[in-house]
């Protein structure tokens, strides 16, 4: 079946180059659709056949890297993870993710999102710096404790949730669903002890309080992370903390790494380089 044309669709693509174009414009290109063809595949065809200067980000082509977040037929999606057939339309309208500045065409400037993400310290914060730099064992965590944050750790930072959020659209101070969900992901990790530090960063308009639970972030998330849930749980944590009802976790203990015998067909881990 591969290569058999199913139909022809119109790619309605937004073009814009700040500094060069006065305002964005739309271009239409006819593209033949083959079975299994994704929106990203179609963009490559458009670039190859009609618009060689068309710019977008993409890398893995399998919904892992989070590079190709775009506004596709009015909804933030991953271009590589969206088949043209599932759009059920003869028009594929492709624009850059809303709520971000545009670098060029379909390339959003994600710096604002990643700056906030970094400010919220998305890593394990613990007192035992020595142990983190030169591990003598493993941080203890039960499967049940893992469940507390596992769903939120599937985030690939594609920015679709930020593009769908109505509060991000109106309030530049608000941190947004991705950084907040990731802050909660670490706050709810039993190995972490950085809740108080992140709480300070979350004070004021940056925190979760401006979220009025539109839920659009969760609806558009291509990985099923449910950032809206993370934000509500974060609010709960912060309120319980204020009422002195939150169970404080100093960070789980270090346990000796297991010494099982490696199976013959599993290669040894590479040696530590730094």
């Amino acid at each position, binding site marked *: 079946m591969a290569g058999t044309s199913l139909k022809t669709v119109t790619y309605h693509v937004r073009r814009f180059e700040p500094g060069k174009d006065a305002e964005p414009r739309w271009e239409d290109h006819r593209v033949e659709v083959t079975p299994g063809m994704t929106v990203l595949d179609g963009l490559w065809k458009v670039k190859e056949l009609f618009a060689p200067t068309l710019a977008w980000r993409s890398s893995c082509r399998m919904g892992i890297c989070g590079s190709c977040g775009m506004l596709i037929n009015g909804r933030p999606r991953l271009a590589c993870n969206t088949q043209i057939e599932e759009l059920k339309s003869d028009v594929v309208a492709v624009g850059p993710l809303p709520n971000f500045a545009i670098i060029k065409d379909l390339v959003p400037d994600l710096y604002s999102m990643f700056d906030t993400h970094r400010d919220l310290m998305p890593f394990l914060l613990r007192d035992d710096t020595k142990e983190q730099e030169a591990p003598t064992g493993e941080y203890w965590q039960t499967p049940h404790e893992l469940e507390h944050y596992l769903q939120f750790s599937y985030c690939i930072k594609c920015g679709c949730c930020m593009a769908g959020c109505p509060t991000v659209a*109106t309030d530049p101070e608000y941190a947004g669903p991705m950084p907040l969900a990731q802050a909660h992901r670490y706050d709810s990790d039993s190995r972490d002890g950085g809740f108080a530090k992140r709480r300070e960063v979350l004070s004021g308009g940056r925190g979760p*309080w*401006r979220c009025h639970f539109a839920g659009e972030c969760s609806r558009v998330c291509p990985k099923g992370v449910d950032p809206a849930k993370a934000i509500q749980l974060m609010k709960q944590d912060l309120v319980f903390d*204020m009422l002195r009802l939150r169970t404080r976790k100093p960070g789980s203990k270090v346990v000796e790494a297991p010494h099982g015998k490696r199976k013959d067909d599993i290669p040894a881990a590479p040696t530590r380089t730094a």
Partner: protein
Amino acid sequence: MRDRTLWTWHLFAGLVILVFLGLHMVIMHLDATLHVGNPFPGGAVDWANVAARMKSMFFAITYVVLLGAALFHGLYGFRNVLFELNPGGGLRRLVDAGFTLVGLALFVFGAWVALAAPGVAMRMGG
């Protein structure tokens, strides 16, 4: 963490409203089936029942608590709606100060009405 405190109070105010509006529903609208809070026959809006509620200190306190909770909950919600319009820092402070003053003024006036009600009922022969 001022926002956290305000949001928590907003939550508690919502719970208070839920309880006291529930009480209002039971007393005012389910009187025919439950007969709660109305000592006299003739329905919840019969003068004898109205006067009995006005004279009750329990109802005076519930009015004041409900008034405070509803004012805070409503004004805080309205403030958030206004903040969605993304006003500048000065305007935000102005909105905060204005809402605080309006809220306090309405609370004092409403509380005075609720606490003066027993005396009024007695003067009117309730």
